[in-house]
């Protein structure tokens, strides 16, 4: 009975709002959560658009793409937000996305000229550690593999950071990637399904370091007033994650979708990102970054594979990873 009432309520609510256009944005779950950027973004955009912005959350970036493929051309999404450069080649191949036709000036360490996808935030993968517990901190992937530091990493098959590390090692080591993984095997305490498990294990004292982002210490500093966490700077450079959004070609509200994408690059959206998604905004807002971000490390080199190359390297790199760590 409860659900009948609920369903009736939903139908009525739908009827009442039929005259306001609804913009549906598919994104990953942590974006829509109460503690993510979603609620603030929704409020800010609805104040300017005379529309109803509805987020639909599903798993993470890869689950989002899988969902989109399942729905195909019948998708209700107008905008998809939350893919990263490891997924964009695959996403473009679906043919579901339309060119964004915008050319904002990004504050990214690398040039950006993808016609289908616009970045909204970015970050560097890094190993995060506790300064009060770890005295000698490795300065490169090779040093990490040679050290006796214990690390927790995420599985590339089920997690975006896990895939990021796979690409990081492949880009730095090339053909030597498998050898590095073999050397790393004794450092790896375990491999988890997702970031949350790994980070939870690290905070619980299960490992000295965890694969996360250079921006992770900012959360502890700003939200918890705890400056004990830091990211280890690697001389190899750090692999980047650039998170992007794109417009669905079959959208019934193409102008509204365009409006959302340009809103996404505005200060109103970009200033929400640093302390909710804990990433760097794609365009630094006029007010600058929140206090505390200046304490984060700046990698010597920014590494990222072009989308098509990342897609091509993915399967061989995974095979190397599996065979090195399955022994």
């Amino acid at each position, binding site marked *: 009975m409860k659900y009948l009432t609920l369903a009736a309520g939903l139908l009525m609510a739908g009827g009442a709002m039929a005259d306001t256009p609804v913009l549906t944005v598919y994104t990953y779950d942590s974006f829509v959560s*109460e503690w993510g950027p979603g609620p603030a973004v929704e409020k800010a955009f609805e104040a300017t658009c005379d529309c109803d912005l509805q987020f639909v959350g599903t798993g993470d970036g890869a689950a989002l793409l899988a969902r989109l493929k399942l729905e195909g051309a019948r998708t209700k999404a107008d905008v998809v937000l939350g893919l990263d450069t490891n997924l964009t080649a695959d996403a473009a191949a679906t043919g579901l996305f339309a060119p964004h036709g915008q050319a904002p000036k990004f504050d990214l360490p690398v040039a950006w000229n993808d016609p289908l996808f616009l970045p909204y935030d970015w970050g560097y993968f890094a190993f995060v550690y506790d300064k009060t517990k770890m005295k000698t901190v490795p300065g490169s992937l090779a040093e990490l593999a040679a050290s006796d530091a214990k690390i927790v990493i995420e599985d590339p098959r089920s997690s975006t950071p896990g895939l990021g590390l796979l690409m990081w090692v492949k880009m730095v080591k090339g053909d030597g990637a498998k050898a590095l993984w073999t050397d790393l095997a004794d450092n790896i305490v375990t491999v988890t399904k997702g970031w949350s*498990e790994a980070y939870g294990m690290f905070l619980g004292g299960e490992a000295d370091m965890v694969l996360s982002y250079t921006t992770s210490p900012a959360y502890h500093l700003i939200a918890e007033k705890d400056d004990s966490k830091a990211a280890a700077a690697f001389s190899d450079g750090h692999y980047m994650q650039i998170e992007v959004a794109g417009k669905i070609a079959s959208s019934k509200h193409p102008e509204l979708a365009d409006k959302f994408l340009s809103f996404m690059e505005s200060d109103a959206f970009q200033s929400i990102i640093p302390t909710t998604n804990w990433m760097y905004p794609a365009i630094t807002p006029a007010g600058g970054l929140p206090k505390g971000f200046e304490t984060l490390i700046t990698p010597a080199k920014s590494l990222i594979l072009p989308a098509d190359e990342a897609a091509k390297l993915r399967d061989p790199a995974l095979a190397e990873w599996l065979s090195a760590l399955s022994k």
Partner: protein
Amino acid sequence: MAERAFKVSHLAGAASAALLLALSFGTLGAVVWRAEAGQALGPADWAAIRFTLLQASLSAALSVALAVPVARALARRNFPGRALLLTLLGAPFILPVIVAVLGLLAVFGRSGVLAIALGWLGLPPVQIYGLHGVVLGHVFFNLPLATRLILQAWLEIPAERFRLAASLGAGPGDIQRLLEWPMLRAVVPGAFLVIFLISMTSFAVALTLGGGPRGTTVELAIYQAFRFDFDLGHAALLAVVQFTLAGAAALVAFWVAVPGAIGAGLDRRVERWDSRTGALRAQDLAVLVAVTLFLALPLVMIAWRGAAGFVALPLGVYEAALRSVGVALVSAAICLVMSLSMALMIAQLRGRGAGRVIEGLGYVTIAASPLVIGTGLFIVIFPLADPVALALPITALVNAATSLPFALRVLVPAVQQVEAAHGRLADVLGMTGWARLRLFLIPRLRRPIGFSAGLAAALSMGDLGVIALFADPGSATLPLALYRLMAAYRMDQAAGAALLLLGLSLMLFWLFDRGGRIDADA
């Protein structure tokens, strides 16, 4: 005996079985229908299949082997706090995986309680990651369930048998041989099968405690095929493999199981005269203390870590909790209607092939991959309605189907026993249909019904289920809110939410289970 078949209509039972079929094989069919031809099984898949079989067999064998002495101790001892202990020991089974793993690591991990204690003694910490870690994790999850299933059977040995045994001067050894062994022979294969199936579909526990890709199970391979390769055909193929393994295991279990021939009693309170010796008392005490420590320590750690975050829980978490309680109650009701109607049907078709088939169907949802169910439902619903708007009802339904096998496990033997013991009397009195159910069966089945409903409600509380595939911002359940807190770095609040979840699940379980045991002895 034609009239016996119409004592209680088969309609509800058949409908429930059909619904189960649709949820398990129907969703798989939907995935197959949507898929292009997928890759055949590769070497990595075979490795995953071997590992899955190995860890699931070990996990089930160890869980059941440990559950027998625990159930025996609980069956022949009565002590203050026994009911509370029974409820608490059920907790690991209903915890979300992520919470249970972090709780286990807080005890057995590299900086866990055990490592600290060993450090004081100058010993190196135990290494938990590996096959033994996977088995440890699965035993932690499933020992309580195995214990409850076996204990239930123990308590169903009629009091008269023990009286007779006592008056004939039978010692513990004789009782074991004559009463307990036949009972175990009937119940243990089923318990083994259930735990084998649960462990088989494990993913996060196997990966995390297995120490990496060595711990790859078939379920993880399905996840990879779906999410990493978007190869639905391959995902469906692996799901078929999982059903085949489950089917083979079920055949073995049914073949090994010998139905109990213990006969009926007068429902009197069981007195045990055989186990009053000091040695047996000490043995039972040791077993109970050991198992309580093993199961309760991780729970204590979860509560300990959650206490700080508990006071600062955001309002949204309580809203999610309320939603979860609603889903759990609906889910328990659906599960009860389905399992009771199926149990009645199975009992009435006893000995016939159809009964066996229906009973087998009751297990398939354990072997079904949650990801395949969710994806299949999505494929079916998407062209017809908005899956997101239906997120909560779908979650309640899928959760009910997930807990149904456990309810069935408890209800089928109970219904069979009641029918065998008092069915003829009810026949003579001409009780059929609703009257038979209301006046005769349900009062006799209060205990298993309460237990099943409690288990279904608690499982539904703790299960992330399909909601993660369908959720919108406004319909998070408590487990989803917990995951969202973790994803937002708020590990302390997530620990608080875990404590809330643990408390609510246990409360729901206790209320139902208690309701079933009111006025009942033991």
